């Protein structure tokens, strides 16, 4: 469909040119001392990207861009439809705020790094994602997918001086390439069946694919994209890569890069395999949805359990990304399950919930990573054991971080609440699925979901409470001051989005249902959404619940209470004094709870998951008397069950096999020739014997 938007193509070119210019400019002017100008093109590009995608979403059409034939590498067409525009909008918002933030954040590296290299990869990374989302054939999709992976790899190892970061980069590269291989396989399977690389041809012939082909393609794509998205058990690169990367890159990776995997899955499942069309038997695909729900539930619980005991802020946030991807998968899975029982409205509703959560996660996770970056920018540590009391030194960062924390914890008036509300409604609506086993298993998933929400609250109370509140735990904190203004503005953009999407959910909901063409009859007034169990027909939201009204009630009660208390009790004095310490005198920072001790009860409850081990070694002064101790050494460790019980055995087996293979590598040419001969003989026999 050719869009009515005449200005779409020039807009798209401006976006592309801005990012390319940003990348090249960085390289050409690499001697230029402060790194600021490298991010200005990407800010401009992001603004145009937001304009373009909003235009397409509101217009409802799609933009087909064809370059002159014979351009480089035969990449000559792009398609931006509603879904792509939604994801481009995400990229636009996040990269706008992250680029603004980076203007000052880059100072962290100016002294001992080539910031030009950073500028180049930063711009190319965003550019590759823009191209990836808008690509319309297998070839360009894979090229830009790889470009995205490689640029992000170089950004992850930007601090390559530390071995730890290099290791993180290698793990990331290996995992992401394995994923790419599977994605390539699944796309090539489709194209070999169709005989064309174009996505358009996949769409046209989706009805002709056999069920088994669809199943194979689905499994390959699920594992391939799942690796990038970071679902358990393919998530292991994530907690390494995010903390190693500079914080602005972590924000981009966590907020939008892992979402491109979701985009790929949606394309393959909803677009190419023709799920939901009346021509096929949808109930064959119910296990797709169940797989999504199961893996999503496992990911969310495992992610959040790892996150809550973590001491490093960025690692905790990385685990939280795994958890949120799990939640998005649950939403997608519910949507697929409903679809396979032809509950179309419910399916669209669950899809809306998943996409709303995806949008929210992009926004609040980039905010939180930028907040963590602000902490690192000033204190040069991400270890919470060393922080504390930052709220007094960095009040604005604290406030913005608090907005992110409130959003991710799913508390009312902030955006996380809306998507979690929608997901809970989807869960409750699962009672309409006419299969008891499936409803009960979805019920179990809902327990996992609710448990996740409970622990997320604890995780973020810990992160905020330990790093921003209470007494500083080390001296670093005393010397710092607030971060530069551009960083605050960068965080402020997404914080504002958190509040808007939280207070006026209808904006986000109508945008998503418009973009994804969900056909939801959201028959509510603007700014309100009602409690509905869609399709049950019992209550169609006769009494709408409106969050701004609730906020209004909240604020008026607040004012009335304060007024009442001061009216009745009169004006009383406030005395500032030290914290009560049982009369012990001045309290010091070592008396406070540490992050590890704060989450210890949770670790104890789930000890089967963490497998904690405590080793106490005490060396006495005299061997005859154990009570006079010279020193006591306490070692506390917990296990990462997935790495220890899944990846380590696989790796050790691979190494063993390699050891055995060594025997064949003797260095004698004769033996190699013999090997070649035997192989050829075997192949010839096979060719002869096969029919």
């Amino acid at each position, binding site marked *: 469909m050719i869009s009515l938007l005449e200005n779409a193509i020039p807009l798209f070119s401006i976006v592309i040119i801005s990012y390319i210019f940003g990348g090249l400019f960085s390289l050409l002017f690499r001697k230029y001392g402060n790194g600021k100008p490298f991010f200005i093109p990407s800010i401009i590009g992001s603004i145009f990207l937001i304009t373009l995608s909003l235009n397409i979403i509101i217009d409802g059409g799609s933009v087909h861009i064809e370059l002159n034939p014979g351009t480089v590498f035969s990449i000559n067409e792009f398609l931006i439809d509603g879904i792509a525009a939604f994801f481009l909008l995400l990229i636009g918002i996040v990269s706008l705020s992250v680029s603004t933030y980076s203007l000052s954040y880059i100072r962290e590296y100016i002294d001992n790094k080539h910031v030009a290299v950073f500028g180049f990869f930063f711009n190319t990374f965003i550019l590759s994602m823009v191209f990836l989302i808008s690509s319309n054939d297998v070839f360009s999709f894979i090229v830009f997918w790889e470009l995205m992976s490689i640029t992000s790899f170089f950004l992850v190892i930007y601090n390559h001086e530390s071995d730890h970061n290099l290791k993180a980069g290698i793990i990331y590269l290996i995992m992401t390439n394995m994923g790419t291989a599977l994605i390539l396989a699944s796309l090539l399977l489709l194209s070999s069946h169709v005989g064309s690389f174009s996505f358009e041809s996949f769409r046209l012939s989706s009805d002709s694919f056999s069920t088994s082909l669809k199943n194979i393609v689905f499994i390959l794509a699920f594992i391939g994209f799942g690796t990038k998205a970071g679902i358990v058990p393919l998530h292991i690169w994530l907690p390494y890569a995010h903390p190693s990367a500079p914080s602005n890159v972590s924000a981009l990776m966590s907020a939008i890069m892992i979402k491109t995997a979701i985009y790929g899955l949606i394309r393959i499942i909803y677009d190419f395999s023709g799920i939901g069309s009346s021509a096929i038997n949808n109930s064959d695909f119910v296990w797709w949805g169940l797989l999504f729900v199961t893996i999503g539930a496992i990911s969310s619980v495992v992610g959040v359990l790892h996150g809550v005991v973590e001491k490093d802020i960025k690692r905790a946030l990385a685990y939280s990304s795994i958890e949120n991807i799990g939640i998005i998968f649950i939403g997608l899975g519910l949507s697929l399950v409903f679809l396979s029982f032809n509950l179309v409205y419910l399916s669209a509703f669950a899809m809306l919930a998943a996409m709303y959560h995806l949008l929210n996660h992009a926004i609040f996770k980039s905010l939180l990573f930028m907040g963590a970056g602000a902490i690192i920018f000033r204190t040069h540590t991400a270890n919470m054991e060393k922080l504390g009391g930052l*709220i*007094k030194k960095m009040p604005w960062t604290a406030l913005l971080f608090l907005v992110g924390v*409130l959003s991710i914890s*799913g*508390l*009312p008036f902030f955006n996380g*609440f809306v998507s979690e*509300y929608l997901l809970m*409604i989807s869960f*409750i609506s699962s*009672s309409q699925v006419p299969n*008891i086993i499936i409803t*009960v298993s979805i*019920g*179990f998933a*809902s*327990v996992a979901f*609710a*448990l996740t929400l409970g622990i997320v*609250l604890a995780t973020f*109370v*810990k992160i905020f*409470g330990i790093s921003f509140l*209470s007494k500083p735990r080390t001296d670093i904190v005393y010397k710092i001051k607030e971060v530069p203004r551009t960083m605050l503005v960068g965080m402020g953009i997404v914080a504002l989005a958190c509040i808007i999407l939280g207070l006026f959910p209808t904006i986000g909901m109508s945008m998503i249902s418009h973009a994804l063409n969900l056909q939801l009859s959201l028959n509510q007034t603007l700014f309100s959404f009602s*409690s509905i*169990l869609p399709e049950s027909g*019992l*209550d169609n*939201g*006769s*009494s*709408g*619940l409106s969050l701004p009204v609730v906020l209004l*009630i*909240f604020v008026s*009660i*607040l004012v009335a*209470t304060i007024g009442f*208390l001061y009216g*009745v*009790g*009169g004006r*009383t*004095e*406030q*005395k*500032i*004094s*030290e*914290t*009560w*310490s049982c009369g012990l005198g001045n309290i010091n920072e070592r008396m*406070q*709870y540490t992050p590890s*001790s*704060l*989450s*210890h*009860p949770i670790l*104890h409850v789930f000890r089967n998951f963490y497998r904690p081990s405590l080793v106490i070694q005490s060396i006495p002064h005299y061997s005859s008397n154990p009570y006079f101790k010279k020193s006591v050494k306490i070692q506390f460790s917990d296990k990462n069950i997935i790495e220890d019980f899944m990846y380590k055995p696989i790796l050790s087996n691979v190494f063993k096999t390699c050891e055995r293979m060594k025997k064949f590598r003797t260095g004698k040419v004769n033996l190699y020739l013999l090997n070649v001969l035997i192989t050829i003989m075997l192949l010839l026999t096979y060719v002869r014997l096969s029919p």
Partner: protein
Amino acid sequence: MSTEISAYPSSVLVGFIQFLIIIVLAPLLTGIMRRIKAITQKRIGSSIFQTYFDLLKLIRKDEVISEESSWIFRYSPWIIFSATLVVAFFIPILIPYPPFGLGFDIILLLGLFGLCRFFLMLAGLDVSSAFGGIGVSREMMTSSLLEPALFLVLFTLAVTYGSTNIYTIVSHAAEGSMMISASILFSLFGFFIIVMAETGKLPFDNPATHLELTMVHEAMVLEYSGKRLAVIELSQSIKQLVLMILFINFFIPWGLSTNFSPATMIGGLGIFLTKIITLGVLISYIESKVAKWRLFRIPDLIFLCMASGLMGMIFLYI
């Protein structure tokens, strides 16, 4: 029967009366429950109106604020109190209809209680004393486990009564003459444990002591004094009352008035008071019969509650 009762003056009046009843009744209920506990322990105990005097005393007192604390500590009590009162604003006690024409969702209720808990925990950490840490770390454990249990109960109720809107649930529950089904019974059991846990009753927490071994809620609010302490105490009472009202409304809703005539409404109020005081007496009696559990045994009880909620959900489908 339609739930389309629009907001007209008398219903708005009823709404405000309900709201006031909750605020005024909450300290009284706490007083009654303390008195019952005292009597079962063979003490005389203080007057049931003592809680009002305590609140009044606290409001008039000067405050001490920790020098380590930030604005989080100062503003948390107001946020906690307002969030609790927003819940109280919407809870039906006389009529199962939205008095202001606004719906209220049980998931929003979960969220608002989460908001209270969030700021309470932050305030506990803000003062940088070890007591705050103790309370917060324990609260983190219990609350993160209680969340799924509560969600399961609400799940069962929402599916049984066909909505997540509290007024629809209550009015449907009140219409059904005898809603005794296995799933509702299991949910009842689960919700009862949740009420005990959320209000800091004995096997979970003992708010009457200031002994660090048993403290959960008290440890977090240890640094508060004066007006802010009064606000926190009152919001705790209101939260307790709200949870008990929810218990009554969900599981024993009979006797709610179905129209706006003053006579039936006063009768309904009488029945409501009888029910709530009976429940209060029951809870205090149970509390005086159990000992404080070791901290790490508490999750067992919550898992029992979760299992019960899960059974409720499974029986829903079978």
